[in-house]
């Protein structure tokens, strides 16, 4: 079993908690209490390694930090994304504003974590409100706009709905597969190196870098 740490970031009310609950409990409430500080949840998924001969699934456990979205909670964020393997940066498709907030988060992650191995996924939520067949299309952020940005920044990108569940599982599945891939490569290269130098005491590269931000109040 592998364990990965995943953090959700994004403006208040974009649906971070709803996404996590859809993933962890496969349920949705129209009204869920707003998050104070942060909540911690975990959930496992199975992935199949097509490249190996083994027919057995690999179990991946996600340790998920669901954070509070209001601006002033931002100062606590470094504690959450410290050592994270993946970050889901969520915005609300019906709120243009929330995309720019998401972009701020992406910048912060890139500046403060600065790890190429950190998987960042941009996630547009509330897709169910964007049914164009219905007259009530509330979309405010065009798919292309976000997509182009995600490609520029080298992010994963999905549009999902926590309400209907559309796309939510896939997001975690593909992040899981990616992380597994990285992990496998890490282990292979570690083995290789260990063979080279019999006693390789500590392999610093394998560690997830911590945030080196002396101004963060917590760590």
């Amino acid at each position, binding site marked *: 079993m592998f364990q990965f740490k995943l953090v959700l970031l994004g403006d208040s009310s974009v649906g971070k908690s709803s996404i996590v609950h859809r993933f962890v409990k496969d349920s949705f409430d129209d009204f869920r*209490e*707003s998050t*104070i*500080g942060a909540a911690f949840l975990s959930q496992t998924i199975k992935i199949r390694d097509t490249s190996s001969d083994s027919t057995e699934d690999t179990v991946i456990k996600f340790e998920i930090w669901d954070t509070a979205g209001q*601006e002033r909670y931002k100062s606590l964020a470094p504690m959450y994304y410290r050592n994270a393997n993946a970050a889901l940066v969520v915005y609300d498709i019906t709120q243009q504003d929330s995309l720019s907030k998401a972009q701020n988060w992406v910048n912060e992650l890139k500046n403060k974590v600065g790890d190429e191995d950190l998987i960042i996924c941009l996630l547009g939520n509330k897709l169910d409100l964007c049914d164009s067949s219905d007259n009530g299309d509330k979309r405010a952020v065009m798919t292309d706009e976000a997509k182009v940005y995600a490609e520029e920044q080298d992010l994963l990108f999905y549009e999902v709905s926590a309400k209907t569940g559309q796309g939510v599982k896939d997001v975690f599945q593909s992040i899981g597969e990616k992380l597994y891939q990285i992990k496998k490569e890490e282990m292979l290269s570690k083995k290789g190196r260990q063979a080279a130098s019999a006693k390789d005491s*500590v392999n610093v590269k394998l560690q997830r*870098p911590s945030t080196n931000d002396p101004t963060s109040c917590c760590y």
Partner: protein
Amino acid sequence: MSVDILRTTEGIEQHKPLMNEGIGVAAEQTESTKVARNSGPRKSPSAPNFHEKTYAGHSMSEPTLLRNCNGDNLLNLGDNLSFNDRDANLSVINLYDDEVISRQMDDFEDNNDEDSQQNVDSDEGNTPTMSMLQNNCNGSETEHLDRYGFKKQNNFITVEEYNKWWKDYSQYCIRRKHKWKLLLAKSGLPMDNDSPNRFPSRSEKLKRYVRKGIPAEWRGNAWWYFARGQEKLTKNKGLYDKLLQKMDDLLKKKKKKKPMQDLDIIERDLNRTFPDNIHFQRETFQLDEPPMIKSLRRVLVAFSLYNPKIGYCQSMNFLAGLLLLFMDEEKAFWMLVIITSRYLPGVHNVNLEGVNVDQGVLMLCVKEYLPEIWPFIAPLHKRSPINLGNSKYNFGKNEFLYRLPPITLCTASWFMSCFVGVLPIETTLRVWDCLFYEESHFLFKASLAILKLSEQTLLKNRPQRVLRHYSLSNGNYHSKDLRINQDESEMEVFQVIQSFPKHLINPNDIFDKVIFKKRVALNRLDQDEIDRCRKYVTTQRQRYKNYNEIVGSNLHHDDDEINDSNAQKNDLLSNGPQDYGSINNENNEEQISGAASDMKVNSNNRIGNDLVNNALSSEVYGFKKSLSGVHWNNSIKEKVRQMRKKRGKDDDVLL
């Protein structure tokens, strides 16, 4: 049955009740009055009427109240009230299910002298009256709700568990209320139609009464009284109205201009406040939002206008929401002002520094009062020492005040929302009773009590962590393993602390098992201690911050040192075990300040040097000790106790 009995409160005639909805919000007024008319006479939602009946007023022989139903249907709301007026009944709460009991209680409880100390630790539940209980029951749509309109069931507690607990607890409440009545009578205070608004003067006895719970239907008045709300309101007469007027103007403008940030966030939180409570729910068929949501909006917006330094902070919706269940809007507003300024100063400020300070205080208190819990939450390794030239600087033993342990991410929300949503509702209310009577130190006491109660669960889940904590100083570990294991065990501890409080359905657990126990010594912790502690942590954090700023700017001059991103890690490795896990090590103060003077001094960091010295030579906070003056080290105490336990001589087993 009349549902129009309203509590009268001095001087706020205008706002009482919200019976006519919408104070000052002209746009909404017409609409909502229409709704109010349509749905018949609706009781004030903002002040559920807990005292529709005074149980003392019923005679024991009243037959309808004595229907026995095997006790499985005990908790109906509004059972005894007219059933053809459901809508109104929702906020009319039958607090005790059985109103007859109190009469029977008289004989028994009168002999039970509250003042005798021995009563303090005794189990309130084991009274002969328990067997005399009769319960009334009948089917009701509101069966799944508790007396405040919250769903009984949640992810942590089943309806069965709730009912089982409530069966006893409701009787406890009846007994307590009876005692309160006697106390008021003895103090010559009027009961005012079961809505007293004056209470006895402060005393140890009253404190004990409060700790055992204020009667639910008196809570609004009692909180208001103990928190000296009227004083505040009298000083600021008319201000709430003005704020609402201002809000009205703002909302009118809103359509044209970009709305205020706070207003927006408040709006998003309105429907995310107590979605499990009937008073806050919007029924699908209801076009208009519930009056409670409107009150909540007004209180929060008024507050954000009143105090722009705080504005709106998520968590205040829960504070205001709970207040609104017990008092009218204007009072709720002033109580919110009092909570955020007097009890939780700075906690909701834009930079949240107040909450960080309080977490530092809590950590100090854990270390002092719960040394057996500290290893679970203490940072296992300190951050790598800061590398300056050839010298390395470690933050002293107080580093955790600045770099707070991860668990504080959880405990921070305990303070921000005063346990609303953290503890089950009855337990939360009990903490609030004490908060308003005893002031903010009680929040720390409650936190410590919760942590203490979680000890068994923590041990069950991961005893290794504690072991590791102690073995670290012996130095057998690999840095990487340590790091990963540490993260992992932090998560586990976090998970326990996050969910544990949600199971504390019985408010008495916190008191009987911890706070009333002399052994845990929490009673030494008083308001004065917390005030001093807060000051201390505030200065410490400021020093560290200054220090970091100076050192941070120094590092930028020392390019070759820091630009190697591995420098810190290498440092971490080469420094070896002796740098870790020495949290309880009291001897490194001189070493550190000695090291500080070795510092490679740049021409421009004279002040910096002072600040560094200042930060590093930080004195340790001295807790008040017990009278004897003997400085018992708590961890020694703990050891002695465990030795005694082993010998089986300790009969006073915790928990």
